[in-house]
Every structure is written in structure tokens, then in C-alpha cells.
């Protein structure tokens, strides 16, 4: 399975079955995603023949000369069974089945059709992503096998997002572009015909070096223990973060037991996810923030945080956000305080949270304050806040300059660089996800992500974190 999945996600050639020149066909959009982006061979398959997206098409899969690693299928549901037989005979490694109209529909015919295609796939040992999926994007090897070409704009990195919903991939994928979350893979498993969460977890943890953290979006599973057992078996290898939809806390009101009446499905999911070593998050935003922080930062050994801010206000709300998520403001050692005092004149608060305002025009001093705090044994991570003002325009570029020669930080630094669009874009891009820094939009989100980094450390190393709840 893993070998086939490797070829499916990094194919040497792709056939698009149902490839089209017509905008209202999904096969058009799959071609758009591949052409000009994918470096392997593309074989459009269309019985009408001629050129599709300026590439000569083939009337059938059989007529393609040479091997096909991946087949992306976007034909009507009724034609899928025959197409899968053709894929099996052609020795295709794997299939993305975009076509919908299977067990997700009300008509029971959909479910029986899905049973039929599962059997055919089993006959040929053919892994299928889908049916009822937008496809997948493998950013590490520039394969966009989806009907949304813009996903190719996501930066290449270590976050793999595996979702039960295509819509959530679109939400998170576009947010990822905007917020510079760098991904290895983005995919919706659709109806999970024969490639489900457990198979993907095993593949991503054991066989995909480009993936550093796995983000899951789960709606509901018939057999959740399979996913949880797989995660538990892989525990401590790569962090897994999950957003679980369906937050009903209602237990079985008919139960004559306290336990039964108290056991809402979400309460059980919550316990089961932690038991499996999966970090549960509450929102899509938190899923991305957390995954990005894990991808970019070392894990903190504790929950003691230094807040360094260019302006007092953002530092105060960051400090306020620490305690509810289980973090505390760290206390600086005498040595650290002396180093800070040497770098900052006594016209602002120099204890934690540090108001770095007086050093605002001196990026070197700012970096030195950051370094002093990170060297302190009593600090596990730093929240760094910089709001643009016309007079500190050169701060961000100055920091980039100083960071070029700096060693990577051994502790997480979560930063907010907030400026009007266009002003600090360059330096923000240069600082983000480098040398232990992750940039997030707000102080509160920075605090939450820091807390989650600490929780991940606890999950990975088996250390208890008392304040687990949000």
C-alpha cells in the first residue's frame, strides 16, 4: 500500500480521464491544475480525441503508450466501474476519483455503486483517493491533482492536511496562502473508499519525509478506533493535530445510567483523541496556526513565556491570553535582566512583558533582547510583537539582516508583525518559518499556538499538562 501511495502522490505520469476543454467540466479544471505546474507526463483521455489544453488526447486509457502512475477520474458515476477496470488492466498505481454520486447521496443506489467500485479496486489492489473528492495537492513534488489550480500557490513545507471535507481544504488552503502556512500535502479523502485516515497516517508518518506535522479534519467515522489505534501506534513520531466537527455534548437521554446520559459523542472523542496522542483544536484557524508553529518552531519544554513587545498594549493582551491557555509569564534571572537593562534605557517596563519601545530604531538591540531572553533557563518560549509605525519602517528589514547570520533559536519564537499590506511583506516573508520563528496574525493566536506547542511536547514526551482544556 505505502509503495503505491508513494507513486500515487509523486507520479511520473498522470492520465486525466474525462479531460476537457469545456469550463463547465471538472476535467477542464483538473487539466488546468496540472498543465504548466506538473513536470511529469500528462495524458488527457477523452473519447472525442483531438487536443485538450493543447496536449494530444487519447481515446482510452488502453491507447496510452507507456506507464500511467496516477489516473485522475472525472467521468459520470455510471462510467466509473468500467474506468476502474481499465485502470487495473493498465497497471495504474493509484486513482483520484473526483466523481461524486456514491454513498454520500440519499439514493441507496449510490452506496451499492460504491460497494461495486470498492470490489473492483480490491481486485486490482488499486488505492483510491475518493470518490467525491476535489483531489490532492502534493506541494513537495509539485503535483496538483485537484480541480483547484490555485492550491499550487501554497508554499512548500511540512504541514500535511488530511480532511474528510473538500470544503475545509478550500478554506484552509486559501488561508494557508494568505498566512504563509507551508504545506507538504493537502487532500480530501472524500468517501474513503479504500484509503482512509489510518492508511494515510501510516504513510505520512513512516514514508513521507516532507511531512513534519499532520493536521486532520474529522467529521465522523463508523470505526473511529481504527484511526485512534493507528495514531497511538505512531505516537511520538510526528505530531498529529485534529479538528473534530460535531460538537454535540448531548448524551443518551434514554439511558438509565449516569454514565450513558453524560456521554456526549464529542466528550468521548475528546478523551479518545488525547488517549491516541492527537492534539485536538477547536477551530480551523487554530488548526492552521498550530500546524504552522509545529512546522516552524522547536517544541518548548515548559509553559513559561516571555512577551517582548514594541508597544505596551499588544504585550499586555498577549500576557492576558497566556493564563487561560495554561501558560505563565516567565520570571527573568538577574543575568537576563541585566542584559536587557544594558540594551534598553529605563524609560519603559523592562520586566516581563518587556516594552521594547525605546530600542525600536535599533534592530540589533531588539535581536539582542530576544537572545538574552531565550538564553534564560526560566523561559521556554517567546511571543514577539511588532506593530508597524511609520518611524519604525526599517525595523523589519533590520531584523532580517541580523537574522541572516544568526544561529537558529533553540526555543520557539511566535511573532506578530502587523503592518498595512505591502509595507513589511518582504521582511515578514523572509523571517517567517525560519530559524525557529513562526509569524501569526494576533497576540491571542500567538499565545494559543504557543500553548499548543507545549501540549504537543507533552503528548510526544508523555509529560502531563494539567490545564488541558480551552
Amino acid at each position, binding site marked *: 500500500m505505502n509503495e503505491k501511495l508513494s507513486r500515487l502522490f509523486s507520479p511520473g505520469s498522470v492520465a486525466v480521464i474525462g479531460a476537457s476543454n469545456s469550463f463547465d467540466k471538472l476535467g477542464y479544471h483538473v487539466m488546468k491544475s496540472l498543465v504548466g505546474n506538473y513536470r511529469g507526463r500528462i495524458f488527457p483521455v477523452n473519447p472525442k480525441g483531438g487536443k485538450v489544453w493543447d496536449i494530444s488526447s487519447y481515446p482510452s486509457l488502453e491507447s496510452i503508450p507507456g506507464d500511467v502512475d496516477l489516473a485522475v477520474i472525472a467521468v459520470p458515476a455510471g462510467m466509473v466501474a468500467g474506468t476502474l477496470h481499465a485502470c487495473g488492466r493498465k497497471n495504474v498505481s493509484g486513482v483520484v476519483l473526483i466523481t461524486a454520486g456514491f454513498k454520500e447521496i440519499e439514493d441507496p443506489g449510490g452506496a451499492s455503486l460504491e460497494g461495486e467500485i470498492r470490489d473492483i479496486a480490491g481486485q486490482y489492489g488499486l488505492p483510491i483517493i475518493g470518490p467525491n473528492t476535489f483531489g490532492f495537492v502534493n506541494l513537495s513534488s509539485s503535483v496538483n491533482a485537484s480541480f483547484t489550480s490555485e492550491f499550487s500557490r501554497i508554499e512548500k513545507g511540512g504541514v500535511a492536511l488530511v480532511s474528510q471535507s473538500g470544503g475545509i481544504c478550500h478554506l484552509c488552503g486559501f488561508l494557508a496562502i494568505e498566512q504563509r502556512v507551508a504545506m507538504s500535502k493537502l487532500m480530501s479523502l472524500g468517501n474513503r473508499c479504500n484509503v482512509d485516515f489510518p492508511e494515510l497516517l501510516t504513510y505520512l508518518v513512516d514514508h513521507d519525509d516532507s511531512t513534519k506535522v499532520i493536521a486532520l479534519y474529522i467529521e*465522523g*467515522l*463508523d*470505526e*473511529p*478506533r481504527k484511526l*485512534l489505534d493507528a495514531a497511538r501506534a505512531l505516537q511520538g513520531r510526528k505530531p498529529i493535530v485534529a479538528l473534530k466537527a460535531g460538537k454535540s455534548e448531548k448524551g*443518551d437521554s434514554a*439511558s*438509565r*445510567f*449516569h*454514565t*450513558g446520559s*453524560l*456521554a456526549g*459523542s464529542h*466528550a*468521548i472523542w*475528546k*478523551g*479518545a483523541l*488525547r*488517549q491516541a496522542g492527537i492534539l485536538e483544536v477547536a477551530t480551523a484557524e487554530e488548526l492552521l496556526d498550530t500546524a504552522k508553529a509545529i512546522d516552524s518552531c522547536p517544541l518548548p519544554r515548559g509553559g513559561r513565556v516571555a512577551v517582548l513587545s514594541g508597544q505596551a498594549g499588544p504585550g499586555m493582551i498577549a500576557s492576558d491570553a497566556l493564563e487561560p491557555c495554561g501558560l505563565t509569564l516567565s520570571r527573568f534571572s538577574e543575568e537576563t535582566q541585566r542584559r536587557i537593562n544594558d540594551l534598553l534605557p529605563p524609560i519603559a517596563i523592562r520586566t516581563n512583558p518587556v516594552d521594547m519601545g525605546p530600542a525600536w530604531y535599533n534592530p540589533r538591540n531588539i535581536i539582542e533582547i530576544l537572545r538574552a531572553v531565550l538564553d534564560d533557563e526560566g523561559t521556554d518560549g517567546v511571543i514577539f510583537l511588532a506593530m508597524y509605525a511609520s518611524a519604525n519602517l526599517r525595523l523589519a528589514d533590520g531584523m532580517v539582516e541580523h537574522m541572516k547570520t544568526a544561529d537558529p533559536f533553540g526555543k520557539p519564537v511566535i511573532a506578530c508583525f502587523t503592518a498595512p499590506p505591502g509595507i513589511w511583506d518582504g521582511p515578514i516573508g523572509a523571517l517567517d518559518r525560519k530559524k525557529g520563528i513562526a509569524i501569526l496574525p494576533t497576540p491571542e493566536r500567538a499565545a494559543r499556538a504557543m500553548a499548543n506547542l507545549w501540549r504537543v511536547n507533552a503528548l510526544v514526551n*508523555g509529560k*502531563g499538562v*494539567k490545564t*488541558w*482544556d480551552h
Partner: protein
Amino acid sequence: MGSLMLSVDAVTFLEKEGFPVLRSLLAATEDEAAARAAEIGFPVTLKLSSPDVIHKTEADGIRVALRDAAEVRQAFREIVGSFTTGNPGKGLDGVMVQEQGSGAEVIVGMLTDAQFGPVLMCGLGGIFVEAMKDVTFRLVPIERRDAREMLEELKGYGALRNPRKGPIDLAEVEDFLLGVSAFLRDHPEVREMDLNPVFISTRGVRICDARIKTG
């Protein structure tokens, strides 16, 4: 449908399975109640035992800290009287006479979920169960780390750890949760279970009341 094991039967069964319980005997009459109480030793608690009553407190079915035979007799009459008036036609097994428990009350329970299978629950017990819903869940079987985290996640964890009456050995409570998990693994016929309350104190862990559904 399977069968339901209640109060004295359930507690006695769990004792045989090796769990620590408060000594409990069933009494059908006032005389029997007084005799059982003397056998157990005062003070004792009397509790309504009926398959139709889940909330004994709400059914006015509990009398605690009874110091002598006269108080036991009085309590027996009150419990039976108020049950008979309030629940015409409902079944009454009798009254449970029980060693007086003390300490913090927790609930440990199990349910069989359609998707997850056997699930273990632990939470703050007694009258707070329904009101606070301060409970945590894990899938059976659990490991020690899970047991510890089930306790740590409770909002009332601080209160469990620092009760005014002296320190509780939480490792013993973890052992108890692990014991329940092992019991459930060995008894797949158990479908649903409430151990409520379970007293935890400096003297250890004691199951006070239980109901078990098998099938």
C-alpha cells in the same frame, strides 16, 4: 435486553471481583435492618434499593450517619414510607444497610458506544454528577498515563488533590481506574455501569454504590 444488577447485588459482585467496597447488606424489614446495622457496626447508611430508581437522593431514599438501632429503624420506615407514597406500583427490593463512607465522592462509569465500543468515564460524583458534568472519558483499555490524565482533566482536580481532610493518594485512584479497565476487558458482557459514588479518602478507595447492565 440483558440483565440489570443493582445496589447490594452489584456491590457484592464487585467485591468478589476484588474491588474495594463499603460493606453492604440488604434488609427487607425494619428488624432485619437493625440486625444488619449491628453486624456492620455503627454509624451506617440506609439506601433505597429499587430497580426503578436511578436518583436515590431525589427519591428521598438515603439516610446517612445513623448511630444506633433506633435511628436505623426510624430511617427504614421513612425511606419505605416515602417510596411507597411517591411511587405507587413500583418495585422495591428493600433497603441497603451500608458501612458509612467518607471522603470525596467520584463516579466511575462505563458505557458501550455504537462507534467507540467500551468507554470508561470518571468524574466528580455524588450530587454533583448531573449539575457539574465534570467528567472525562477514555476508551477501554486504558494505561496508567490515561488514568492520571482522566483525573487531571477534571475541573475539580484541585479539590481532589487538596481535600481539607487530608491528602488523597491519587496513585490509588489511578490503580482503581486501571482495575476497572481490566475488569471490563475480562467481562465483555458488561454493557453499561455506574460506580457512583466511589469514596476516596486517606483510607483509600471504596465503592459505595453501583449498577451494572450485562447482555
